[in-house]
Structure formats: structure tokens, C-alpha cells
């Protein structure tokens, strides 16, 4: 069947085409105006702002050259934040990938009951972060919290969690996994459901055991989905803000242990009002995101299997 759009296009006379030009401009104007104001222009501004000394009041915007970038690179907190950011991503990515696969294996299959359980696991994903982090702060409470109750019941060492420079970042990761793992599970489930049956059945007839089928057949077929999860989890980790704000009481502590780059940028720009300095750091963060994405793309050629 000929598509409607193709038909509409071919039915036009030159005069009508002219008319369409105006109509198109009117139809597109609101969207384009908003995109110019809040995406295109700011994107250009983002690149430029770091090269100036800029003040909100507009007085004395002067050329700064590379000064902002140089002082960012000399700022020890910048490197702490970079380390925290990478460490956080390093915790989140493998745990998310493995967790999503395990959950999907466990919660696959037909039936209303399993479907209901899937709904429960996705539930945290739609809850507001600040509101649900409160329950977790109580869970992390060193004296009365559930987590330490559980740890001591199991005979494991208790920790100070959000008050410990070592355990604060893993605690933030724990919250984020609770909040987002259901989403990754649904994506893994969709991938599992779309796998061709014939391949694993053939392997089974050839005498392959369940473990062999999983590692040699299912897993390779899932690599495109794993790659997708890898990319969105990395980007999500680099963006993590609300949960850090909520769990650290808006401080990024203790001892800067949860100050990631995006948190440092927020503090620099909106608590201390060093806009161009923060803008320079934002450019460095974007370069980091770009670099990681390109690296993952390059690496994916070695392990992602496209049918």
C-alpha cells in the first residue's frame, strides 16, 4: 500500500508546494523556537562560556582564554570528583548488567503472578527519588537501620554507610540499583522474549547442557542488549544527582566522598556562582562522556554479536 505521506507529496502542484512551505513554517515554529532557546543556543553557549569570566549581573564579562580550564585541572577537588564519578560508574555498570540478566532469568515466563511480581520490581523506578531516599536513609542509619541489623544478624561487619567515606558511594549505588534495576530487567526480558527458539532447541538436541546453552547460545545472542544497557547505565551513572543530593543531605559528603563531577558542577555554579568555572568543568565532563561512548563503541566491535 502506498503510504499516505508519499501520496500527499506526489499530489502537490508547485503552487500548493509554496503554500505548504508557509504552513510548514507555522507548524514547526513553536517546536523550533523552544529548541533554539533551550537546546541549540545553550549548546553553543556551553562551549563558549568556559572561555570567559562571566557574571550573572552582566557586568565585566571578559575573555579568559584557558584560565578556567587550567584552574579546573589544577583543582584537587576536580580530580576527587572525577575519581568518584568513575568509581561510581565502575560499581554501577557490572552490577546493573548482571543484576538485570539474573532478574530477567528469574522473572521470565507467562502467568499473571509472575507478571505481578515484575510490576512490583519496576515500581521503585517510577517513585520520586527525594521522597523514597528518605526510607533508605533510615535503612542506612548506623545505629538503628535495617541494613546494619541485617549485617549483624548475618555476622557481617557493620558500617557507617552514608557517614563513612568508604561506604557512602556504594550506598548511593545500592539506592540507585533499587530504583532503576526494574527498568533494566524489563529491557532484558524484552530481549529474552525475542530470541529465536530454534537455535537453543538445536543445541539441546545436540546434547548441550543448560549452562552451555546459556553461555554459548543465549548470552551471545543477548550481547546487543547488554551493549545497550552498558551505554545507558554509563550515561545514567555520570548524570546521577538527585540520589546523591538526597542521601548526602545536599552536601556531597562525607569528606567529598559522594561529590561526583555533576555534583561539583552544581555546587560551583549554583551555590558559589562561579559560572564560567563550572562551565569549563561541564565541558570536561562532556568530553569524558564523549570519550567513554566512543571507547565503548570501539570495544563493542570485539564482543557484541549481531545476528
Amino acid at each position, binding site marked *: 500500500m502506498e503510504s499516505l*505521506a508519499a*501520496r500527499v507529496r506526489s499530489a502537490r502542484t508547485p503552487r500548493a508546494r509554496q503554500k505548504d512551505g508557509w504552513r*510548514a513554517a507555522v507548524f*514547526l515554529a513553536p517546536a523550533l523556537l523552544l529548541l533554539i532557546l533551550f537546546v541549540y*543556543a545553550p549548546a553553543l553557549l556551553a562551549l563558549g562560556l568556559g572561555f570567559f569570566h562571566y557574571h550573572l549581573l552582566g557586568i565585566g564579562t571578559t575573555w579568559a582564554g584557558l584560565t578556567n580550564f587550567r584552574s579546573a585541572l589544577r583543582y584537587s577537588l576536580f580530580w576527587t570528583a572525577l575519581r568518584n564519578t568513575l568509581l561510581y560508574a565502575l560499581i554501577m555498570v557490572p552490577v546493573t548488567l548482571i543484576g538485570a540478566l539474573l532478574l530477567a532469568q528469574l*522473572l521470565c515466563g507467562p502467568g499473571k503472578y509472575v507478571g505481578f511480581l515484575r510490576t512490583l520490581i519496576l515500581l*521503585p523506578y517510577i517513585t520520586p527519588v527525594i521522597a523514597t531516599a528518605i526510607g533508605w536513609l533510615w535503612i542506612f542509619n548506623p545505629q538503628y537501620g535495617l541494613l546494619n541489623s541485617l549485617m549483624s544478624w548475618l555476622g557481617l561487619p557493620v558500617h557507617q554507610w552514608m557517614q563513612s567515606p568508604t561506604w557512602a558511594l556504594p550506598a548511593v549505588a545500592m539506592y540507585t540499583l533499587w530504583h532503576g534495576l526494574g527498568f533494566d530487567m524489563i529491557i532484558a526480558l524484552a530481549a529474552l522474549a525475542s530470541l529465536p527458539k530454534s537455535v537453543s532447541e538445536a543445541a539441546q538436541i545436540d546434547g548441550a547442557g543448560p549452562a552451555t546453552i546459556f553461555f554459548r547460545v543465549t548470552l551471545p545472542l543477548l550481547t546487543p542488549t547488554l551493549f545497550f544497557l552498558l551505554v545507558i547505565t554509563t550515561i545514567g551513572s555520570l548524570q546521577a544527582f538527585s540520589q546523591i543530593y538526597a542521601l548526602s543531605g545536599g552536601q556531597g559528603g562525607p569528606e567529598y566522598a559522594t561529590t561526583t563531577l555533576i555534583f561539583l558542577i552544581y555546587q560551583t555554579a549554583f551555590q558559589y556562582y562561579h559560572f564560567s568555572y563550572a562551565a569549563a568543568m561541564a565541558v570536561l*565532563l562532556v568530553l569524558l562522556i564523549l570519550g567513554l561512548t566512543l571507547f565503548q563503541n570501539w570495544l563493542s566491535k570485539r564482543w557484541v554479536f549481531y545476528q
Partner: protein
Amino acid sequence: MSALPAVRRRGSRWLQLVLATLVALIFLVPLYIALVTSLDTRADVFSFPTHLLLDFDFSPYARVWGMARWPMYFLNTAFITGTTIVLALATSVLAAYALSFLRFGFRERLFVLILLVLMIPAEALLIPNYVVLHLLGLLNTYWAQILPYGVSVFGIFLLRQFFLSLPSSYWDAARIDGCGHLRFLWSVALPLAAPTLFTIALYIFIGSWNSFQWPLIVTTSHHVQPIEVAVARLTQAHSVDWRRLSAAGLMATLPLILVYALVQKQIIRGISRGEGLQG
């Protein structure tokens, strides 16, 4: 063929269900803990190991309700979310229609330029968007929280895909009846696109209702702030009273849980199809 074959054998199906139930319950624990804490009698809150049984002392809710202007914050959030949905749907529908049905010179290139927006990391726009709102004199208003989300590029993409799939006989029939583009869009294309519109609206709703970072940055006046910012302020001011804090947190979570109970099927379907990634 998806799960480990061992797990799928009939006997192990029960084991799978028991394990899955346990895991699902673990995901509910943090919400349950908040509920227990918010309803605890004072004596039970500070006990170790953690108190796990429900009491029914509703006084923290009454007290937290009196501590801030919650109806105002709820209304602010509802207004910001509602306006964002209407605005973003309107701009995206019009743009998608032009990009699928209308003929003009640089259409395909313009579509690519619009899709490029999806590649720009949100972090890059944080500071310049603030500067733009400052220059427009819109800081500390509702509009500062609405306009930057006033067009959904992913929505344009989905709607354009849908419009291009409509059979041409619809347009022919509409043409013969003397239908113009606007009439056709309003009375034929939009009703057919209702499921797509609903999906887009759903993700804008979740994103907007739960947004925190942006309102935190662009607002200082309580009168225009959404509920998440108000709850965060409470966290910092009263970090000691866990019962009230938990009550406030649950109050802010409840509307989302209600909406989820109604539309969880659509949300799961949207994520499965990869539609749920952009707000």
C-alpha cells in the same frame, strides 16, 4: 527459549516462583520500612534491631501536614506537569505533522537536525539554560520549569513514524470531503495516534512530576516550587524526626504509586519497545 532450561523444568518452576517472590518482596522493603517508621509510636523508632511491625500512630502525618503548605506544593507540581504535557504534545504533534505530511525544501535535513538534540548530554545544558532563563527574566517562575521541556524530540520521532504509516486512502477520503490539513490532523490523524500520544504523555508525566535537579536550580521561591524540592528542604531542616520525614516521603510518593497501579501495563510495554527512554 529464554530461561535456563534447568529452571524451566516443571519441578523447578515452583522454586523459581518462590525465589522470584522473595526478590520482589526485597524490592518492597524500603517502602515498607518508610511506612513502618511513619506510623511508629515514638518508643519504637529508635530500637535495634529495626522495628518491623506496623503500629498505627497517624500523628506524624498530621504534624507534617501542618509543617509546610503541602496543598500548594501538590498544586504547583500538578500545574507544572499538566502544562508541560499539553505544551509538549502540542508542539511535537504540529512539528511531526509538518515533518511527515507537508512538503518543503529542507525537510529531511531539518528532521536530522532535530534528532541531533537527542545526542546532546543534559549536563552540558545545565548552566547555559540557567543563563538563558536569566536573560529572559524567567528564573523563579513556573515557566522556567515548563518551557525547557516544552517539546519532546522523542515524541516528534514516534509521532512521525506513526503518521508515515497511515494508509493514503484516509487522506484521499478527507480531501474529497473538503478537509484541510488542520481538520485532517485534528479529526483523523490525532484520534488514530491516541495510543502514541498517551505513551508520550505518560513519560513526560513521570519525568516532570519527579524532576528535582532543575527546579532546585531555577527556583528559590516556595510559591512556585514542586513537591520534591519541598521534601528535600524538610530533609535538611528536620533531619532528626524520622517519623515525620517518612510520612512526608510517602505522601509525595503516593500519587505516583496510584498512577502506576492504573497504567503499569502501558509503562512496561513502552519500556519493552524502547519508547520509555526519553521523557
